[in-house]
């Protein structure tokens, strides 16, 4: 098995073949979640910490279920319920958790680079569950898994990612991953939220959604992160909707078999009209479902499960 990484800090350090290994492993693990007894003993006896410094519905429960379906012991920590609220530093928190003999630490943090930072002093496997505006590698992996399910390939696909690109770790991880697998990625958003530097990551930049959407195979809408808009980036949500919301009318210019994706949580009728979000073209809930399989694959590959055990 071609997987030599100790941590999953981002998509950037991964090779295309490592990404493919994760996706293939996820495919073989996906079936476990549809069994009546949704559990295999692959990671029995492994201890995993699920450390979430930011609110999360999907990612946190997805990691938790992924770990449990592989029989690992997982413990959840949030910022509110931990000593962080007493002023303990991240370094001390991690060192204390690790003193309890953890095998892996899954971390979601508002500050970019936090997973990298803790990997410099800790011996557990570190899994980045989203760090600031930097990366959200398992989201990009589950997005890729979902695209592969529907499109069977990556090369030649035209993928549009639209919304608040500047603050989006999902956009960064997706651009990196999709470029590594050979797709064309076009980023769309208001210019102050889409600085030209993103072209250095390998994406094309377009400020006009109607133009970008023509002939697209995949349209991924991002949430306007209202909690990060402490500066002025665009005039109003009303005008944002007018220029950048995915509506039925706009969607007609995409390819006939185009799919609609969204990492969630969605702001209905802001970045995406509610009828499209619930349409057959939308794969938003499949993304969530696939998230469990992809995270099972990541845990399995990092924590060194044995391949034959998958079949148990």
């Amino acid at each position: 098995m071609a997987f030599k990484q100790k941590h999953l800090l981002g998509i950037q350090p991964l090779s295309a073949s490592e990404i493919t290994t994760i996706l293939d492993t996820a495919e073989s693990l996906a079936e476990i979640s549809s069994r009546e007894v949704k559990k295999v003993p692959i990671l029995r006896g492994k201890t995993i910490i699920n450390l979430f410094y930011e609110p999360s519905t999907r990612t946190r429960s997805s990691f938790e279920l992924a770990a449990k379906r592989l029989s690992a012991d997982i413990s959840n920590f949030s910022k509110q319920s931990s000593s962080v609220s007493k002023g303990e530093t991240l370094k001390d928190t991690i060192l204390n958790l690790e003193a309890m003999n953890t095998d892996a630490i899954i971390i979601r943090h508002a500050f970019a680079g936090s997973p990298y930072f803790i990997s410099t002093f800790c011996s557990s496997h570190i899994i980045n569950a989203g760090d600031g505006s930097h990366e959200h590698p398992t989201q990009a992996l589950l997005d890729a898994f979902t695209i592969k399910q529907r499109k069977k390939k990556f090369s030649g696909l035209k993928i549009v990612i639209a919304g608040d690109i500047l603050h989006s770790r999902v956009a960064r991880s997706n651009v990196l991953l999709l470029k590594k697998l050979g797709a064309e990625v076009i980023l769309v958003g208001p210019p102050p939220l889409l600085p030209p530097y993103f072209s250095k990551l390998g994406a094309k930049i377009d400020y006009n959604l109607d133009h970008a959407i023509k002939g697209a195979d995949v349209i991924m809408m991002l949430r306007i992160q209202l909690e990060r808009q402490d500066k002025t980036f665009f005039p109003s949500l009303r005008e944002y909707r007018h220029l950048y919301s995915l509506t039925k009318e706009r969607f007609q210019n995409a390819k006939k078999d185009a799919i609609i994706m969204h990492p969630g949580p969605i702001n209905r009728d802001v970045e995406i009209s509610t009828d499209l979000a619930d349409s057959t073209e939308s794969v938003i809930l499949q993304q969530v479902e696939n998230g469990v399989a992809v995270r099972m694959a990541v845990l399995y590959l990092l924590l060194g499960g044995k391949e034959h055990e998958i079949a148990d």
Partner: protein
Amino acid sequence: MKLLIKNGRVIDPASQIDEILDILIDKNKIVDIKTKISAPSAKIIDVAELVVAPGFIDMHVHLREPGQEHKETIRTGSAAAARGGFTSIACMPNTFPVIDNSGTIKYVLSEAENIGTVNIFPIAAITKGQKGKELSEMAELIDSGAVAFSDDGNPVSNSQVMRSALEYVKQFDVVIINHCENTDLSENGVMNEGPYSCQLGLNGIPASSEEVMVARDIILAEKSGARIHLAHLSTKGSIELLKAAKAKKLKVTAEVTPHHLILDDSSLANYDTNLKVNPPLRDKKDVSSLINAVKSGLIDVIATDHAPHSPDEKAVEFDIAPFGINGLETAVSLLLDRLINNNTISLQRLIEMCSTNPAKILKLKNKGKICPGADADLTILDLNKKIQVDVNNFRSKSKNSPFHDWKLKGAPAITIVGGNIIYSNQSI
């Protein structure tokens, strides 16, 4: 007690000397300089093969005392300066309490006198509490020993306050030093805005945040006719503005730091908080623009912006780590290695930026030159000494240097202040 410095290559830009000469010091003054001095009663130091320069003056240092003695004290900062080859340092007023009153200035000066090594020249705050609103009592501060005014750490954002400061202080002919940053543009930023901040997901500090303020300060300096010194310039755009201001013969001077001349934002890939500094490390075209400005004579001063922080304070997430690089003990070796060894600039030019010009800008009489009557402050350099930077050997209380383990050629050899040898790595 007389001291005779023999056989050194004496370089003094102020008197345009560059030759092998002896220097005779009597008590705290230079009394003679010529070939082959004989002074039977003097202690003799043979500095053959070494370069003797007027004492280096670092006009941008954060000593942290009073108030943040866990980072640095006047004593440890002085020791670091001596080891780094500096004979004088000017300390910034962002202490707790702020140096905006004569009592705090007197405290710093009396502590410096007790320690009795490097000369310490306090820079007082432009505004009370460095809050940017009301001017500090500048006349009294000058009388107490302030050599310049700055709210460094913060810019003076309010243009009317800056205008008043310049107009008011002009009567005393004391320089105002501004930390040029438009905080609306830099808000929440932690590194240079560009492809690397984009890739790392860190909030950017755009070059424009510095340049907007540099432009404003140059305009206000022109209208007021007062002297302004632009601290730690970091961008190509700032250099272009400076060039235009100097072409108009305005009373504008500027400094750069060693780290902005040597490092760029590509080095931040590992979120090393020792590289977090304000202004941030810029991109490669900015660095080459700064180096060209050092070569062309546009830059007046190299200053360290020595900003010590304790290891615990830096061992945190990049976003919440404090800005600052520990500079006093690496500056001279970095400059010799990166500017002199490859002939980017001459030694004369380096000494001009590290001694002659800071003395002029701060109006330090009898400093920044080697001639009879000048203070006996000398920085003696060993151009051939190979060193490896080790933060564990720092005399500074803090170790926050991105240059740890760097191998460099050239180092300070002997530091003499007021005729006393306060540092030496030679067998003398």
